[in-house]
């Protein structure tokens, strides 16, 4: 790859990072906090491309010849570029959720329930109150949780939210098993807003033996995927 081609790749890479950072695309891959860094590094890459092209022109004028075979491994940079531009792979969904064990952990304290009837809770909040507090802190109130659907091999439905710390490579699912009044047709990866009540039933994740509490569903509503598909709150 000579310097002109390197400048082109640097420019495209910087533009792809800026594009991902300026839209919500980056939220499929990394945490929200990385956005300023993404935009800054995109700008630096573009500046490098411009500087390369600029100095290359001056060098051309000075000497005329420019044989600089760059490192061959650089061609690999085209792979993430094409993946981002052409296919923009979706956020991790039910496939990864079923392959990974639930990451539910015992919390240190249970905050007061938010106001509202039914109580709006995240998947993680409901799961930890149900699994580790036997639902005591729920006071028998109906809850409303949002997540995407995953169906295991036997067809049993789970409501899942992937929790993320840095990037999608470390994303881990937190799962709630659904029982009760469910719609007849369930599509994996569809986002659902589920209203229901606590039930003491508990099962174990076949992957890592982690606890998966049940939620007794009274009504469901299909919803749009949230802006940030990952839950970034649970341990920050």
């Amino acid at each position, binding site marked *: 790859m000579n310097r002109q081609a390197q400048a082109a790749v640097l420019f495209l890479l910087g533009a792809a990072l800026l594009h991902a950072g300026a839209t919500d695309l980056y939220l499929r891959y990394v945490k929200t906090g990385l956005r300023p860094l993404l935009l800054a590094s995109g700008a630096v890459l573009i500046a490098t491309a411009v500087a390369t092209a600029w100095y290359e022109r001056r060098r051309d004028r000075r000497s005329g010849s420019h044989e600089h075979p760059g490192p061959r491994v650089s061609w*690999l940079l085209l792979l993430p570029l094409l993946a981002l531009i052409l296919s923009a792979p979706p*956020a991790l969904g039910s496939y990864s959720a079923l392959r990974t064990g639930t990451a539910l952990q015992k919390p240190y304290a249970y905050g007061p329930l938010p106001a509202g009837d039914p109580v709006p809770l995240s998947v993680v909040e409901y799961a930890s109150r149900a699994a580790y507090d036997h639902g005591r802190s729920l006071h028998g109130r109906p809850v409303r949780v949002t997540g995407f659907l995953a169906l295991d091999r036997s067809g049993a439905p789970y409501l899942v939210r992937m929790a993320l710390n840095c990037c999608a490579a470390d994303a881990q699912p937190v799962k709630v098993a659904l029982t009760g009044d469910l719609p007849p047709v369930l599509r994996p990866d569809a986002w659902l807003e589920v209203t229901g009540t606590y039930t003491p039933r508990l099962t174990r994740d076949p992957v890592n033996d982690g606890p998966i509490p049940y939620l007794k569903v009274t009504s469901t509503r299909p919803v749009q995927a949230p802006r940030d598909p990952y839950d970034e709150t649970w341990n920050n």
Partner: protein
Amino acid sequence: MAITDDAPPGAGPRRTGPSPDHPGRRLNSPLVLTLALLLAVLAQSPIRGLLGTPAMQSWMTVFVAVTVQALPFLVLGVLLSAAIAVFVPASFFARALPRRPALAVPVAGLAGAVLPGCECASVPVAGALVRRGVTPAAALAFLLSAPAVNPVVLTATAVAFPGQPEMVLARFLASLLVACAMGWLWQRLGRADWLRPPAHGTHEGATKGEAFWGAVRHDVMHAGGFLVLGATAAATLKAAVPADWLRTAAGSPLVAVLALAALAVLLSLCSEADAFVAASLTAFSPTAKLVFLVVGPMIDLKLFAMQAGTFGRAFALRFAPATFALAVTGAVLTGTVLL
């Protein structure tokens, strides 16, 4: 799935075809690049069909995520390393570091605490230090300690292990210990010809500006390529390794330690995030988790590819297994004493 159907951003400037001065030249890289991008755009629907299965999609997501997450830190490290290479005179390091290499190693290891970032930033910086005449033993101690002992990573560890400050202390001490041990080991056994100094001259270019941007361009293209290689391997292994083997491994202490050490290498997590993953491996002993936290920032697939690119394959093939063995030993020792 949402698809960005618009044309590649900035499609214009890449069309720098073969220059008119050389009409009969063979295929040159701008032409190949243009052809590759055009072909990819033309063939996008069959490509999408191939990549449509859930397994391929999650592979791609992890691959893109690892790359996108690491690129800003790589750029940060490259900027720093270019600044060191161009603007900091070599005499500065001669004065800042103790003359005796045996003393310079721990000083450089502690200096790793000031580089706030993850491991992708430390590889180019360590490369620049070697080029600037810093003794390799000290630069390698810096390379190994910087991703694990800086405040950002230690804070993340404290957040991931609330109520267990001894985990933060153990991580700090074990990482520093292993980094210094590797530095001293290199000083005793290392041979200069294993280290291939980076091929490009640092001072090509008439002005400092040209040298600086030249170094940034070269390092991004070079280390970036190896980063992609490492991300490919990490995504593949994450997709291929069945998750339930971890559960069986947690049973015996020895297997647990080795399993988490291997997992740290295979997953190639960013050192700012690995503490949260370690904390979620509840079935494992604290010592096994510490091994995961010490091994990961020092050696993983992504780092191995980048080290091989920066320092040469002969170096990486010797350095990586030694680092792995010492990191596991050091973490187990520290864990036995502290945890």
